Structures are given as structure tokens and as C-alpha cells.
């Protein structure tokens, strides 16, 4: 439990909907959901969602804060946009799912083991440092995120894929040293730092 989380609980008391509206990307749309159920059947990894989007919206209104924010469900979103083009109320469902995931992660109460959360974190660190994806370092960190033994095992499973990419010139085995990224990394990092500060202030994360 983080201090930010405690502060948010205190600030919004039992009004989770209000909290979502204020802090989650596109959260002010949640109240527009009419529970028609169309989106519930839209997610490609459907049976991996303990609570489909429709249910998540209902739970937000019912104030089930813990259950929603610690859920693994929204981490199953593949950004396929099936839901968005089908929803009769035009809710930006994809973005709300990303927003909920981001918010839970920020508060430190997101699902701990979820691989997509951890991958997304590695990915963001990867690009915010150099400005561009270093595919080699990204995949190495991904495979080794559970430790060295499991990393070697996964690495071996993926060896065929990796070798295929290297052989066809689509993965540079030297990229750990040679990957350059953009020129103005300083400007980029300063810009992202600023954006983070502003967002923290707007959302009341900053003290």
C-alpha cells in the first residue's frame, strides 16, 4: 500500500466513481455505460478476463475499488479496438482500460505478477531513455524478468525465433552496444520529466 493510495482513499471516501472520473484516462465516460453487454464479448483474450469491460464499469459504480484496481482483467487488453467501434454509447473503452491499468500501477496496488504490466514497464523505460526501442535489450529484459533460470528456459524456447530474426537481418545481436536511439535524448528526457510533473500535479499525486 503506498502513501498515494492511502491519500486517494481518504480523498474520495467511498465514491470510487468520482475517483475514476477525476484520475483515470477518459474516466468521465464510465457513467455513460448503459450495460448493454456488447463490449463483454469483444475482447480477443476473452476468457482470460475475469471481469469483462461491462462488468468493470458496473463494479466501478458499485464502489468495488479494491477488486477493480487489483484485477488482472484490464491487463488483458490487446488494444484491438473491437469494443470502441461497437459500443452504442461510444465509450472509449480501450483507453479506459489502459487508464485503469495505469492508475492501479501508479497507486502500487496493481496485480503484482501480471506479465504485461511488467513488460510495459520495461518497454517504457527502454524508450524513455534512448527515444527508440532497442529490441534486443527489450527482449532480454523480458525473458529475464523472472530471474536467471526461468530466463534461460524462456530464452531457449525463443531461440528459434531469435535466430530466425538474426539470420534474416531483423535482429542485431550487437544492439546492446550499437543501438543509438535519437540525438536529442537530453531534450526528450527533460520533456518527459516535465510531462510527468504536470500530470502528477493535475492528478494530485504530487505533495
Amino acid at each position: 500500500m503506498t502513501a498515494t493510495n492511502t491519500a486517494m482513499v481518504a480523498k474520495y471516501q467511498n465514491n470510487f466513481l468520482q475517483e475514476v472520473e477525476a484520475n483515470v484516462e477518459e474516466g468521465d465516460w464510465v457513467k455513460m455505460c448503459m450495460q448493454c453487454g456488447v463490449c463483454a464479448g469483444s475482447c480477443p483474450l476473452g476468457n482470460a478476463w475475469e471481469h469483462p469491460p461491462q462488468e468493470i464499469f458496473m463494479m466501478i459504480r458499485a464502489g468495488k475499488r479494491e477488486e477493480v484496481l487489483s484485477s488482472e482483467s484490464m491487463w488483458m487488453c490487446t488494444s484491438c479496438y473491437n469494443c470502441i467501434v461497437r459500443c452504442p454509447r461510444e465509450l472509449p473503452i480501450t483507453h479506459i482500460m489502459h487508464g485503469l491499468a495505469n492508475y492501479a500501477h501508479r497507486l502500487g496496488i496493481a496485480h503484482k505478477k501480471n506479465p504485461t504490466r511488467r513488460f510495459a514497464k520495461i518497454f517504457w523505460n527502454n524508450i524513455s531513455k534512448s527515444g527508440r526501442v532497442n529490441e534486443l535489450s527489450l527482449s532480454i529484459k523480458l525473458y529475464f524478468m523472472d530471474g536467471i533460470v526461468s530466463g534461460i528456459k524462456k530464452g531457449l524456447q525463443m531461440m528459434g525465433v531469435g535466430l530466425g530474426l538474426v539470420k534474416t537481418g531483423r535482429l542485431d545481436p550487437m544492439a546492446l552496444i550499437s543501438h543509438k536511439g535519437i540525438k536529442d535524448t537530453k531534450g526528450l528526457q527533460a520533456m518527459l520529466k516535465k510531462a510527468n510533473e504536470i500530470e502528477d500535479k493535475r492528478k494530485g499525486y504530487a505533495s
Partner: protein
Amino acid sequence: MAKKEYSFYPGCSSERKASASNYMVSVESMCKTLDIQLNEIPDWNCCGASIGYAEGGELPRHTLNARNIALSEKHNANQDIVATCAACWLGTKETQERLSHSEQMLADTKESLKEAGLENDYKGEVPIRHMVEVLIEDFGYEALGKPVTKPLQGIKIAGYVGCQTNRPFGVDGESFENPKYLDKLVETMGAEPVENYDQKVTCCGGALAFSEPEKSQVQIKKIIESAYDHGAEMIVTPCPVCQMNVEVYQDQINKTYGTKFKIPVTYYSQLMAVAYGSNAKEAGLNGNIVRAPQLEEIAAK
């Protein structure tokens, strides 16, 4: 036809020795034939992709994309921004839309851009387009067919459209359920589109192919199986993520499910390059892990 110029956003995967470097090679050949000049956005950065959201908040993500738009509007003034990756295109377009609808978000983004000296360069006015839109809208199928010197006769190709060129914005006003633009491109190049390919807009799992491989491979299996079931000898895609996901896990899927998948997965630009007379190298065919012998044969003629 006069030369057409665009401001080009290649995206990380199209960099040299990155996973879609062969896409880039074929795009260059295709553009040469069509007399398209792509002016790369100087010092462009990653779009944050659809997976940046956990650690990157809303504003940082929009700021990343806004930097590219600002750089483009500054250096390649008045040129449409063109992306070859569906995720880059979508991400950039979404940022432009969001900033045009929220003054607060726009002001905050500009304040952040100031740190990179670009606060006065973001206008958000140029159209942001995917390469296939450029082909279809600025050229049209008829004009695209004209330079064909080696029609891809007799090859049956399944057009795998996937998600992000199709939803939420779509290409050329086509339906979300059954977009036809890849089929039409295939036909224009003299090959045979696979009609009734019922998994053409099924999601492959996207970035979750890395983090949730088993779950995503169920999707990929459906996509490939349906292509085979409808007689396809090859799959064509408009996006480097789709291409990679559908191509590179075939061996793993075969191991898990006892299938015998070995279907080439190509880019529309590779089909076009070959039909326009490029050799295998110019069409990036040596970059396909599952080789495409039918295309190689035509390219060698």
C-alpha cells in the same frame, strides 16, 4: 504523374537491423516506382506503442507523439505525415485528436515540449496517414496497377487486415467487419485474393504476444488456420506487428498443437515491389523467415 512528397515516420521496427527492416526495403522500392519521396522526420522518437501505458501516463505519451508532429511541422512543413506501422499511425493520430479536443491537454503538452525547444512548433494541423491510405486515396487502384510488369499470377493470398489500420479509424471508409482494401491490392497486383477469409480482422494479440505468448498464440493459430482453410498460399499484412506475430511463432504453434504451419507472411509493399519488377533483395524477400518461394520465383524472372 508528378512526384509526391510526404513527411515520413518510419517507427522503431523499421530501423536498420530491426524486426521490420525488410518492410522498409520493400517500401523504398515501391516508392521509387510510384515516384513517392519520403522525407524522414528528423530525430523522430518512438510513439510509445499500445503498451506504453502502464508506466507512461497519458500526458507523457501524448507528449512523445506531439514531439514527432512538431518536428514534422517544423522541418517538413505542409507535408502529410505518413507512417508504415499501424500502431505508430494510430498512436500519432490519437494524440492529434486528443489535443485538438482538450485545451488543457494541449497547453500541458506544449509546456512539456518547451523542454525540448519545440513549444512553438506544434500546430497539429497536418493529416496523419497510414501508407496504405496514401496508396489508395492519392493514387487509387487503377494507377497502382499501371506499373505492374510482372503480375503475381496464380498466387492465392489471404489479406490479413488485423486491428489497427481498421479500427477505430479505418481506411478509405471501409467496413470494420470486412475491409476489402488488401484484397483489392492483391487483385491489382495480379494475384488471387482469398474471398471469405473469415479471420481477416481477428486480433493477433498485439504486444501481448510477448507478455502472454500462450494466449496470443491461440489467436495467431486461428488466423493462420483460416487462411489455410480457404486455400491461401500466402498471407499479406499492412503492419509490422501483425507480420511478425503471424510469421515468427509458427514453429512454436506447431510444437504445441501438432500443426504443420509454414505459410509465408508478407507485406503489401513486398507484393507491389515484386509486381513492379524488383528483384528479391529489393523486395526484402530475404528478410522473410518463412520464405516466399512463389514471389522469389517471379522476382528472379
